[in-house]
């Protein structure tokens, strides 16, 4: 563990989380030693501590678990050491925290606004206590980094797209069809969820967390509930723990099936889309029958899960795993043997493993670029600890690698689902009573289908109110990597590369 001399306080056992207070020097030392020892930056967030000023917090993933480092910023001090040179993804997180709280990274190279499109004043900070409602302002122009040279021109795409997708703006600098640079402009889906948490009761926060990114609602709700249960010191009944894993894997499979079809369609192979869309639809309908919600929203609640799984529903879920597996294997063969499709996938949008490590590429896209991290295998909770998870990795780093990893993860999830449904422990799915309110810090760390979702929860002194809840989406890291993945590719290949990452706008913008 880096900084062994620091007094680490355990926050949770599984997955292991450690809390420590640092000063500005130790802040940098911790970042450097984490970098040197192969650790990753998970997320950065700031919080307002009232009379004590502000605090900046970094969460690192190391072999020992999650390190949660608090850097207190007393009143009058509004800067902290910049982490972007060590962890490139930190740059945008620091820019966002500056807009939300007014604390800035000292000496940061990029100080352009990120989430704030000019609609709130630069000296008004929504997460400061008592900040009220923002005075409205007009949207401002964003200074994109210009690319100059003979024949270079810009293509602006979005935020409104031709397809029904989330809003985001992409600025391409191209020569002919060749992409020189892509700059993403996000923040169109900023909803002020961090401030909304401050008006939410702790026991209702899982519903809000579950709506940050609809395609990862299970991962977010579980991470929030895990954080709350860590504060409350509540033990989740074994049956509920297993059911949560069932829900998480069903969410993973549904998303992977949708993406695999969409990837075929984006390469002009509509047959793939219709086959996978039907598979996904069957999957979602059974979700609705077995759990009461097609996308599994609000199925995970603090302490356990909302409803128990009926025995006949468990049998149907099991049967569906077999049916889906046979079809996925057939479609996998079709994808692999289709020369035209493979020609589009191979070498397109490559992120090499060294670049991925440098950028902190995470989750599914990271595993396709040799970044072998999967919380289900690295810090397994029950039932993953007894079942074991075979992590799917690839070193290709191209669209083909991301397709392959998706196929392998679907098959692994189907294996896990069969094992889980076959061995569901008996018992209650919620504790008899929830404990009285109490204050404290808690973290939730879950491997969603896109990558690791992290929720940092701080309850106010009376325990009746959320003081700060920071929800981290893996897209924060991967949007940055996407900009590197497209370099040197041609313009018409961008939609395919983008789809192979399939990042969340809402989860990033919050």
């Amino acid at each position, binding site marked *: 563990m880096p900084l062994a001399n620091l007094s680490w306080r355990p926050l949770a056992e599984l997955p292991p989380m450690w809390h420590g207070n640092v000063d500005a020097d130790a802040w940098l030392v911790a970042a450097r030693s984490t970098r040197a020892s192969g650790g990753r930056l998970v997320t950065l967030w700031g919080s307002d501590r009232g009379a004590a000023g502000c605090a900046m917090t970094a969460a690192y993933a190391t072999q020992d678990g999650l390190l949660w480092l608090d850097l207190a910023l007393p009143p009058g001090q509004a800067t902290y050491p910049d982490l972007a040179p060590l962890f490139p993804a930190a740059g945008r997180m620091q820019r966002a925290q500056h807009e939300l709280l007014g604390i800035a990274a000292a000496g940061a190279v990029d100080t352009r606004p990120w989430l704030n499109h000019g609609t709130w004043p630069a000296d008004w900070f929504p997460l400061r206590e008592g900040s009220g409602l923002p005075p409205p302002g007009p949207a401002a122009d964003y200074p994109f980094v210009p690319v100059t040279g003979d024949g270079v021109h810009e*293509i602006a795409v979005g935020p409104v*797209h031709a397809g029904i997708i989330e809003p985001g703006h992409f600025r391409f600098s191209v020569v002919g069809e060749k992409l020189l640079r892509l700059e993403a402009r996000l923040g169109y889906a900023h909803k002020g969820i961090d401030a909304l948490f401050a008006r939410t009761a702790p026991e209702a926060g899982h519903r809000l967390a579950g709506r940050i990114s609809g395609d990862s609602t299970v991962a977010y709700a579980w991470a929030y509930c895990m954080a709350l249960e860590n504060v409350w010191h509540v033990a989740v009944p074994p049956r509920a723990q297993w059911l949560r894993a069932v829900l998480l894997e069903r969410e993973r499979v549904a998303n992977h099936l949708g993406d695999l079809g969409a990837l075929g369609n984006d390469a002009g192979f509509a047959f793939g889309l219709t086959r996978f869309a039907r598979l996904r639809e069957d999957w979602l309908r059974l979700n609705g029958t077995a759990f009461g919600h097609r996308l599994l929203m609000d199925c995970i609640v603090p302490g356990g899960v909302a409803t128990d799984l009926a025995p006949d529903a468990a049998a149907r879920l099991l049967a569906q795993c077999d049916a889906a597996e046979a079809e996925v294997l057939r479609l996998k063969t079709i994808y692999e043997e289709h020369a035209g499709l493979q020609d589009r996938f191979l070498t397109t949008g490559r992120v090499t493993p060294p670049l991925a490590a440098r950028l902190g590429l995470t989750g599914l896209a990271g595993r396709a670029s040799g970044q072998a991290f999967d919380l289900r295998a690295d810090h397994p909770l029950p039932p993953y600890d007894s079942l074991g998870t075979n992590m799917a990795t690839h070193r290709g780093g191209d669209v083909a690698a991301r397709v392959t990893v998706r196929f392998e993860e679907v098959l692994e999830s189907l294996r896990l689902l069969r094992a889980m449904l076959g061995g569901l422990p008996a018992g209650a799915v919620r504790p008899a009573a929830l404990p009285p309110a109490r204050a404290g810090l808690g973290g939730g760390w879950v491997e969603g289908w896109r990558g690791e979702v992290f929720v940092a929860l701080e309850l106010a002194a009376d325990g009746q109110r959320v003081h700060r809840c920071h929800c981290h989406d893996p897209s924060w890291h991967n949007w940055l990597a996407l900009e590197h993945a497209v370099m040197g590719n041609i313009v018409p290949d961008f939609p395919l590369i983008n789809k192979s990452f399939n990042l969340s706008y809402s989860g990033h913008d919050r």
Partner: protein
Amino acid sequence: MNPFGLLAQSFAVLLALTLAPLLKGWIDMWRAWLGNRSAPGLLQPYRVLHKLFHKESVLADTASPLFRLAPYAVFGCVLLACAIVPTLSTDLPFAPAADAIALVGLLALARVFMALAAMDIGTAFGSLGARREMLVGFLAEPALLIVLFNASLITGSTSLASIVETLAHQQFAIHPSLAFAGIAFALVSLAENARIPVDNPATHLELTMIHEALLLEYSGRHLALMEWAASLKLFAYAGIGLALFFPWGIAQAQSPAAMLAALPLLGLKLAIGGLALALVETLSAKMRLFRVPEFLATAFLLAVLGLLVHSLLGD
């Protein structure tokens, strides 16, 4: 000009206008079925045209008169092209006025108007599409010309009507050069009509579009004309393909009865052709943009091989 010729000519134009959307509907229907979807119905293209003609045409502030003119010019060019392709009868008064070379020129003129109109508004997608359309065009047009020359060498004429008369009504002979030309023509038709694997007519991804990117700024009746022109172009290509490679059944001059007999045969040939196109589109993925020149160069090479085979083997 005889009155029957005039009748045959106007009938051919009317037939093209009505059958072209039907052919598109037929292909779309099969594409849906082959992709395990339920189809929108054979008449869907007519419904789309009807809807678009009843909608308001919205023009960008930066649009010049060229932008308004282009749909009519494109539609006119393509309709004229349809008029000189013998589909039912070779008795076409327009045919002597324009031969196969003029036909390629007419289609090229339509392309130029479309590309200019797309660039006229000044959006990134329009220019992108125009650039790509020209990339396809500069290779597809010469390949198409050489394909037509293959047939001209056999028949000794560049007029499509006389080519068909000679091919369909002379003594049956096997022309190996036409086999090469036929494959080349199939490749060119896929590229020229914005079909998979060159372009995807069903895509909504602006960055990958070729043909659709040219139409992004059009709406209402302008879009209707452009869509109709696209199906007419496909119909014209189908007509050329049938005339060159499957000319049997097309009526000779001055025979109204044969013309009526040619109609069901044409329907059958188009139905088979449409099914084949849908099959190709279902089985292929869209290729990378920079593979398109290779694809079209193959077509050109095959067409030239056809010429060589013809000159080696003699008549």
